């Protein structure tokens, strides 16, 4: 694995992780996309050293075709998941006017209960 590739993976993964920590769904999606690409590169570098194209009938040392097949599958899956998330972000925006990821209502209610010393009120 060359230093450049390793550094690229590190930058992509780092930026992706930073973006996923946000509250806005759009940023999370961008982060997940970057993380996915970092990992695709990681798969690609997990093969052996580069060589000839793995085509039947050719001579020479071939590249391992398996990582390429894996990356192709991972890209397709990532594409599907990200389009679903984008649809969800759009839906959240049509409902709320923003795409913030909110706290769970019951979690918040329970946290308030413990703050106020167990006031069992109506669930909000």
């Amino acid at each position, binding site marked *: 694995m060359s230093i450049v590739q390793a550094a690229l993976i590190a930058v992509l993964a780092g930026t992706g992780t930073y973006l996923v920590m946000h509250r806005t769904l759009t940023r999370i999606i961008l982060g997940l996309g970057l993380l996915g690409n970092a990992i695709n590169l990681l798969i690609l570098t997990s093969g052996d050293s580069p060589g000839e194209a793995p085509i039947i009938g050719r001579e020479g040392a071939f590249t391992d075709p398996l990582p390429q097949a894996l990356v192709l599958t991972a890209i397709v899956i990532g594409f599907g998941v990200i389009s679903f998330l984008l649809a969800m972000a759009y*839906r959240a925006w049509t409902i709320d006017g923003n795409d913030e990821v909110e706290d769970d209502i019951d979690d918040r209610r329970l946290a308030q209960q413990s703050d106020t010393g167990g006031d069992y009120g109506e*669930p909000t």
Partner: protein
Amino acid sequence: MSALIPLVIAVPLTGAAVTLLAIRSRTTQRLIAIACAVATAAISIAILIGVDRDGTQAAALGGWPGRIAINLVADRFSALMLTVSSTMLLAVLLYALGQRADDERSRWYHPAYMALMAGVSGAFLAGDLFNLFVWFEVLLMASYVLLTLEGNDGQIRSGTTYVVLNVVESLVLVTAVALIFAATGTLNMADLPDRLAALPDGVRLGLNLLLLIAFGLKAAVFPLFSWLPDSYPAAPSPVSAVFAGLLTKIGVYAIVRTQTLLFPDTNRTLLLVIAGLTMVIGVLGAIAQSDMKRILSFHIISQIGYMIMGVALGGLAAITATIFYMLHHIPVKTSLFLVEGIVERDTGSSTLDRVSGLARRSGPLAALFLIPAFSLAGLPPFSGFVGKLAVVTEGLDQRSWWIVAAALAVSLMTLVSMLKIWTGAFWGDPDPAPAEGQSRGLLRQHPLMSAVTVAVVTATLCIALFAGPLYRFCERAAQDATRVTTYTEAVIK
């Protein structure tokens, strides 16, 4: 025989495609879905019988030799899980048809459900790590759709957490797969045990931990469970019944599979600690809640702890206990959510403050709740008792006193939180007081839902009744799971 194995994936996948084509006619969709579910259940039973007779079977797709082919492997363990899950999927499909809620009337329900079925079957049968990831993705994608089918405010809110966390889980899993491939040059689960054994200890531990994080998130073990009780209650009852019964158990299945097959001799103290914490935190969460669905969701987490405890203890007897526990837990948990679905259908709410006195209105419904509830708490003579007894005995044999103490205490607390549902929803005076004609036959108002629930509860009773033979079968399944050579020899002939 091995020709049947791909069918159990192909049939529901075809079903998903055909239900999509038949999107204009709901009746056609329903008929196709039922036919596919029945066929899948029948095929998986046939596989179970065949595998029990002939031993582990592998289907090499594309006709390549076992080392490089995409393998689908069925041993007694995976065939057992396949049979339980496909019968549960069939039962819940019928229940959803009986419920006639808005989500089932959606045109996308049946295609997504069929895809879920294919993903579940694929995950149980996958013979290499990357395909395991792909089938996980198939079932997750279907579960995203089912969870957010109505697209209302609550579903989008909880769906976001669920989807994002599961995407992160998938990314961790692919990272683990990439690193395992980089370290060993193969992803074939039959080829991996030897090659992993040749790696330095530190590398092996790192790979093992990455896989555990990925599957642990799916199985909702201790530090990684917070997504579950937020997302499952938002789904419609039949959907959360399927999720509760099956999806976390696929994570547990993957943990058992990888721990016994790929990392057989590792020290599992960390896993034991995680198991203990999962049990305790899960049940404490359940006690704090006041909504039926959320209490039941937290119970899933604490029950996962028992299964992980079996894996962590290791050895044939402990894996047998884990497999039996999974076998009993899937129908028990599903039936509890099915009962909850009837309550919610009838009263329009699952919050304990708003539901009351159901036992007065319908004794049979109360019984349908009590049987799986007692089973979950591990009271004899129900099926949970056998599973818990097996896990606890194994803990005593291995002198892990503190985990046994935790397991017993958690059983007691499970009972306490079940009592909370009981006193809240079933005991006391009905609210509002039932009208003259309404007082009898809550179950009779929802005949199909009730029939399915009765059938699933009866199945849990049968597990208790035939615990002896079933336990012996689980022992054979555990032998298949723990003996690496039977697996590798079946795949690489």
